[in-house]
């Protein structure tokens, strides 16, 4: 230790080295001084000139957003050029005079311009300010004609979103100006304030792929702000094109079938989980968002009691009602509390403890087995199955069937649904589970909630032999250069907890719903297509007490929601469809015909195309 500080013979070893080091330091700083001399004296005049004109400027080139196609290469969303009238205040000297002239030429009051100018007067007087976005061609011609009278005024051309059809608004979504919160979140590293980003639907969830990469230009401008020379250009990289799984024609059919009603329709390919159509009613106009929506219009949209901005397929959570009997039947058969031939007698009601649970049909269904109970939707039969299963066992099956949890579709705001258990009730409601409540649960009422998307995936799984798929809405993503970035493959996320034998029995029941003489949905029959399904009528009265007070049309809102889940098969192709009509009263009359027409349209369209070929 002490050796360190002792005087070893070579105590001055560092002295010559320090001299060398100092020499290096002086050399390095001399280099800097020479560079300073070079910049400030030899080239000083040139740099002074450049700085006085401030003539090196950066202009950004916005990347065109990716296009959106349907499954059959039909263009759904496009870009169109938009012309923005801009001013660079420092070039437009004197600004008052220029704006006065601009106002005279365009017949737009000066105040409108000043308002825009004031709103954006902060830093960087050389940054263009948009005076009027998206001007008409006539106005453009006027401004161009007087260009030399208007220093500092320029036309900026930007690609703007254009939605070709007023369909699939909830699925495709729309663009809007990036919010302060979104900017801060760091999820949009390439965007700046004022940029448009996807706000809803695929425009939002596919933002990363659709956005592309902005480029830029370094230009030299003259004193009037006109570009003299382009020094360097970095081209923008256009966003990727998205090919969706939906079929535009089927989508149009679905939306027209739903018109004038409040509800949702979703159709999926049962063999892949691809969404073929997703319709909501009422809907909204996406192009209204592109041109900028007034506060009033926005308020009407979001306060509308029929919730046009809600994607009811994924966000709407409804009691699944009798469609849930599919789950109860599976659970009962698998757990062995019933078999194919177990019959219960339905006199129209079921006594449990001191309560009486009614069947929807007052006169009763007589003796029914499980397939028959599905066919006639006998409540009494399923009360007894539910009672034998208990709530927790039933819940386990429901979750395994994909209910009560998100499907993982690539859209925001997906609802979870709700599958109650005894533990859940104790925790959430604070009261122990009443055994009688299990009876309501068994027929899909009570606390049960499901989204139409969960029901359609469940239906598809029944149809395809038990595979639960993740619902896909994107078929493939193709870069602007033509490379396939992503090609969606069917993604199994689970299997129904049902043996082939169980599925056979359930399918038999569902087949009779449409085709049997006692079936509840005989309306849904289509020639040449094997259709099976299940109706549902969801009671809303008890659930919506508070909401109803605020509503005008109370009597309508007391009516139950109408469900119909179905699958159709023809030539080995299978389509699963779920329809919900809010307050449509009966699944059989309000929802089943919509599903029927959609299935028919799907297979007919196929036929037409085959003929065309």
């Amino acid at each position, binding site marked *: 230790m*002490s050796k360190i500080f002792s005087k070893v013979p*070579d105590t001055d*070893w560092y002295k010559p080295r320090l001299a060398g080091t100092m020499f290096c330091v002086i050399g390095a700083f001399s280099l*800097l*001084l020479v*560079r300073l001399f070079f910049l400030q004296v030899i080239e000083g005049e040139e*740099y002074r000139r450049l*700085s006085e004109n401030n003539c090196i400027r950066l202009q950004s080139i916005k990347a065109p957003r990716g296009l959106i196609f349907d499954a059959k290469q039909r263009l759904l969303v496009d870009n169109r050029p938009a012309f923005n009238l801009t001013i660079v205040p420092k070039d437009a000297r004197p600004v008052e005079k220029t704006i006065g002239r601009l106002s005279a030429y365009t017949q737009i009051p000066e105040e409108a311009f000043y308002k825009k100018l004031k709103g954006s007067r*902060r830093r960087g007087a050389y940054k263009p300010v948009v005076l009027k976005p998206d001007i008409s061609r006539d106005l453009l011609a006027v401004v161009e004609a007087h260009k030399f009278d208007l220093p500092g005024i320029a036309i900026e051309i930007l690609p703007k979103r254009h939605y070709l059809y007023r369909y699939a608004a909830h699925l495709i979504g729309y663009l809007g100006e990036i919010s302060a919160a979104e900017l801060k979140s760091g999820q949009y590293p390439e965007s700046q304030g004022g940029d448009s980003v996807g706000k809803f639907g695929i425009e939002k969830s596919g933002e990363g792929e659709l956005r592309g990469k902005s480029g830029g230009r*370094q230009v030299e401008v003259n004193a009037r702000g006109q570009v003299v020379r382009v020094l360097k250009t970095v081209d923008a990289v256009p966003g990727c094109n998205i090919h969706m799984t939906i079929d535009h024609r089927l989508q149009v059919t679905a939306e027209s079938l739903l018109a004038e009603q409040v509800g949702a329709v979703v159709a999926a390919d049962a063999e892949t989980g691809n969404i073929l159509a997703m319709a909501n009613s009422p809907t909204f106009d996406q192009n209204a968002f592109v041109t900028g929506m007034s506060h009033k219009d926005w308020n009407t949209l979001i306060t509308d009691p029929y919730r046009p901005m809600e994607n009811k397929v994924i966000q709407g959570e409804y009691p699944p009602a009798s469609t849930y009997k599919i789950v109860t039947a599976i659970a009962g058969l698998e757990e062995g509390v019933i078999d194919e031939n177990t019959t219960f007698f339905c006199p129209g009601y079921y006594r449990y403890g001191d309560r009486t649970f009614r069947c929807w049909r007052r006169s009763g269904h007589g003796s029914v087995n499980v397939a028959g109970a599905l066919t006639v939707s006998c409540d009494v039969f399923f009360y007894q199955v539910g009672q034998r299963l208990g709530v927790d066992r039933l819940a386990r099956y429901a979750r395994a069937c994909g209910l009560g949890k998100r499907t993982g579709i690539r859209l925001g705001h997906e609802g979870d649904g709700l599958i109650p258990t005894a533990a859940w009730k104790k925790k959430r409601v604070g009261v122990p589970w009443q055994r009688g409540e299990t009876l309501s649960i068994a027929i899909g009422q009570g606390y049960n909630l499901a989204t139409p998307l969960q029901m359609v995936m469940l239906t598809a799984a029944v149809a395809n032999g038990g595979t639960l798929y993740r619902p896909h809405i994107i078929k493939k993503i193709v870069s602007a250069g033509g490379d396939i970035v992503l090609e969606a493959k069917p993604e199994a996320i689970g299997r129904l907890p049902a043996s082939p034998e169980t599925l056979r029995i359930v399918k038999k029941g569902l087949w009779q719903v449409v085709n049997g003489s006692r079936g509840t949905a005989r309306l849904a029959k289509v020639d040449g297509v094997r259709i099976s399904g299940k109706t549902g009528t969801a009671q809303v009265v008890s659930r919506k007490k508070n909401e109803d007070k605020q509503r005008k049309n109370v009597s309508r809102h007391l009516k139950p929601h109408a469900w119909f889940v179905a699958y159709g098969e023809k030539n080995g192709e299978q389509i699963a469809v779920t329809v919900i009509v809010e307050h449509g009263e009966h699944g059989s009359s309000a929802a089943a015909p919509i599903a029927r027409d959609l299935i028919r349209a799907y297979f007919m369209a196929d036929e037409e195309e085959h003929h065309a070929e």
Partner: protein
Amino acid sequence: MSLFYTGFQKRLLAHAAPCFVRSGQAPQIFFSAAVANTMFDRRLIQYFDWGLLLLTLLLCAVGLMTLYSAVAAGESALQKVLYFKQWVWYGVGFAAMTMCFVFDYKHMDRMAYGIYGLAVLLLGCVLLFGKLGGGSRRWLALGPVSLQPSELAKIAVIIILARYYSRRVKGEGFSLRELVPPFLLTAFPFVLIVRQPDLGTGLIIFLIAGTITLFVKIKRRSLVFLVFMTIAAIFAGSFFLKDYQKQRIMTFLNPDRDPLGAGYHIIQSKIAIGSGMITGKGLLKGTQNTLSFLPEQHTDFIFSVLAEEWGGIGASFITLLFMTLIIWGLNIAYNCRDHFGTILSVGVTAMIFWQAFINLGMVMGLMPVVGVPLPLISYGGSSILTIMVCIGILMNVSMRRFVVE
């Protein structure tokens, strides 16, 4: 004052001879004696380095004036906040500096591994629960203040290398085998910092370590080998550097590559400096600055603002001021009587040198744009604090140049 002490000082040393620690004495006794010396030795005040303090104060004054001008273009509220915060940082910096010279620097030799361990631990914490900012994790939030452990790591590496080399210095230089431990000691924090990612700071650490190592002398054969290895490492580096890091290096090699990113900054910075010409545009009159053409004009590009407004006269004055500071630091190393103090002084001086040289070279378009602030002038607490600590260490060594135990 003369840069090199000669005869007079040597005689003085001879007088001080009785208080030298001789070999064989127990370390504990030695340290307590040293502390007692620190407290009462009047020569400490006599030998206080007023010149170094003056240089520091001058640079701080320049920094405040330039910062005032640099932020003048922005919104006035923000401007006041930045300006006020900078005052606070200088205050904190001076306190840290004082703390760094009141005790004998030889304690640092003993604490070297402790400081190093703490620095590495904090770097690990940064990677695990650091605060995100601008795409990287560099800060540790400690209540209201954020700490940048990579700054502590710089000083820790200097101290630990000074300890390692000071025990082994010899005339003929170090062999490759002896260079392995210091290499590992440097590489460990380097890797942690580059992972944050913070290429600029990582590079500075390596440059400092390299400078110290070259200073303590390497055997010629080893040196040739190391140069060869460095070239190979640069090739290897191109494999695992982040894209934007490569981009920055490529931008330097070929400014036309990314005209709208870093290349644009360099062009605007050159216009700002060049347009200052000889006499400058005057305080607060820099057009490049006031029009927000310069990016980060109050941090990394603050020299451009200064050169534009103060012209060649001001810019070369500041450049020379930095050169004087660095020569001063080397002179302190020259006059130090023990190996640890000499190497320590060279290390901290190397740190100030590289930061100043890289920053100046960068804004003048001589070097790639790596985020390195200009010592004592750029806005920012971590940088000021670190440089002040370095100056405190230099003062420490300087004022004890004749108090050899």
